[in-house]
């Protein structure tokens, strides 16, 4: 089944494919090269940049948006978009923190409930996209507002402090070769590897690409595209729940004002990582690289003593470069 899917690398005549094959591979390598160049540049600017401690720091600073970006990548691969991710994450964080503090529910159950709420939001997104066939942009714009209001109402717009230690355990560190690494970073890396393997190696993973590439052809091949989409949005919701837990662990509080910029931050990471906004093409690990590029610039420019506005500027330029590369390679591919 998997080999029949349009996006799967097929054994085609090589002569026609040389250009097509080369351009996407530049698109895939681009983000990695950009990250390496940025690191090399900052290493020459400040002696503390190239330390294990500093890298551990950048990783922990991108772990929340990194995990959100996994869900966002899945959605974008199906040619969708999820604007609700940051607000849904904030709601999940507030739910788990409030249940565990003022309601006195044991932390593991509270965490499960928080992830349950975000998963439910993901499922609602998926149902509206598949059953009522609304555009994902509008659906998730709606749930963004709903999740925002629910977060403010449920938390009374107050930051929730004194969360139990279990809930912030992922923010604790363990030593790796003399550097303190946060457990949450390990969880993020494991999730990336797991999701990457599923996307590349399983039929279900290939279906995600196929739906984004050509939904009509995919449906004609006998694949239930609605089921694939519903699964993707629901899984994305669950991942936002994990991100909520990481956010609570990192800041130590349930913050109703969290997640305000995370939707665009996650989309930025996905696009910087070379995933096509038109769906069907992209590498999951690229999204991690995309998130790291933003984190490295923010960290490196601070080390240099340069205003962080320049990080915003650089991000903007890189986003346009990434999308332009994708567009050009797509045009050549026709």
């Amino acid at each position: 089944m998997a080999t029949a899917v349009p996006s799967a690398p097929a054994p085609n005549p090589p002569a026609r494919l040389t250009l097509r094959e080369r351009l996407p591979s530049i698109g895939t390598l681009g983000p990695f090269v950009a990250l390496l160049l940025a690191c090399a540049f900052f290493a020459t600017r400040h002696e503390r940049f190239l330390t294990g401690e500093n890298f551990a720091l950048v990783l922990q600073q991108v772990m929340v948006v990194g995990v959100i970006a996994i869900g966002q990548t899945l959605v974008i691969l199906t040619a969708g978009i999820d604007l609700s991710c940051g607000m849904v994450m904030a709601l999940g964080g507030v739910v788990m923190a409030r249940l565990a503090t003022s309601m006195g529910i044991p932390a593991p159950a509270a965490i499960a409930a928080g992830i349950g709420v975000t998963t439910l939001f993901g499922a609602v997104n998926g149902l509206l996209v598949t059953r009522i066939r609304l555009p994902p942009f509008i659906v998730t714009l709606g749930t963004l507002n709903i999740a925002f209001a629910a977060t403010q109402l449920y938390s009374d717009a107050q930051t929730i402090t004194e969360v139990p230690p279990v809930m912030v355990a992922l923010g604790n560190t363990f030593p790796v070769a003399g550097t303190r690494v946060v457990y949450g970073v390990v969880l993020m890396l494991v999730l990336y590897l797991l999701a990457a393997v599923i996307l590349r190696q399983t039929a279900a993973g290939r279906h995600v690409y196929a739906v984004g590439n050509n939904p009509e052809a995919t449906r004609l091949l006998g694949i239930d595209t609605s089921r694939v989409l519903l699964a993707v949005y629901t899984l994305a919701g669950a991942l936002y729940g994990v991100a909520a837990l990481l956010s609570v662990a990192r800041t130590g509080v349930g913050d109703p004002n969290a997640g305000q910029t995370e939707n665009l931050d996650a989309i930025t990471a996905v696009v910087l990582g070379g995933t096509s906004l038109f769906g069907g093409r992209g590498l999951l690990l690229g999204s991690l690289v995309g998130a790291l590029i933003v984190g490295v610039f923010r960290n490196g420019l601070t080390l240099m003593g340069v205003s962080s506005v320049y990080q915003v500027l650089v991000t903007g330029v890189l986003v346009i470069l990434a999308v332009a590369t994708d567009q050009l390679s797509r045009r050549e591919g026709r």
Partner: protein
Amino acid sequence: MLLRLSSCFSAVLVLGSALAAPARAQVPVIGLITKTSTNPFFVKMREGAEAAAKVAGARLLTGSGRGDGDNAGQVTAMENMVAAGARVILITVSDAKAIVPSIRKARARGVLVIALDSPTDPMDATDAFLGTDNYQAGILIGRYARAALGARPARIVTLDLLPGHPVGAQRHNGFLAGMGLVAPAATANTLGKPDEVVCMADSYGDQAKGQTGMENCLQRIPDVTVVYTVNEPSAAGAARALKVAGKDKTVILVTVDGGCQGVRDVAAGAIAATAQQYPVRMAELGVQAGVTFVKTGKKPSGYTDTGVALIAARSVKGVESRDVQAGLASCFGNK
């Protein structure tokens, strides 16, 4: 969206009842428009306005934008309130410039408009402005940090609001002036950066972004001695980064706001001192001025300082401060 709809709806209801009962036209109708309806600072302001309106026998309409920066939502609320017969509008503007044309339109219809908390640009677009002197708030915490520092060198990290925001610049520059450093004037909209300021980052007033900024600055300058942040959520983020780095006991962290959570952080030692603002005072003075205007036609004008006080758990010599109990008594947010 829901919030905005409900405020439109209530304005329509009020309009209906105002038309139905022309005999009661002498009750002053005052509209209060805040940036958001959920932020504890504005909730407290609304409660203060409701209480003051009750005392003065005025009717209060309330509305807000959806979030910080939602100018269109505020314009809609103002139009609805004027249509509902409000003679006075009290507004905490989200966008100091974009709101001005709508305010001019309302004033042209004889409505008194008073800015609360933050001024419009230009300031004389409203009849009067009631708010915190943010430069003075900065001076208070700067003086405290200077005295608490003693003979140690000043190696300062500032976690600011966002580029180009006047409130962020006033607090930042006031703090520098209070520290006895070279600082731009109170009217400047650029951030001063004397040599003692060794690292600056934008926190956007957000806890997670404040934490990230502090972490990165600690990478650059491990031996920081003083941290200024623009508000208490960003200070909470900075405190967490300092604690992880084991520097929470030696670094002096000062900030501005006076919310209940911030005062509790002062009590716990996470924040050394905060400058407390008084949203209730802004609302009370605004409602009183509005009632006077409706009854006598007398308009207020210019800027009125609604006061700011230094709250610290540990007082330092030569700097007047209030203790945590006093801070909790007049804080905003859940006590």
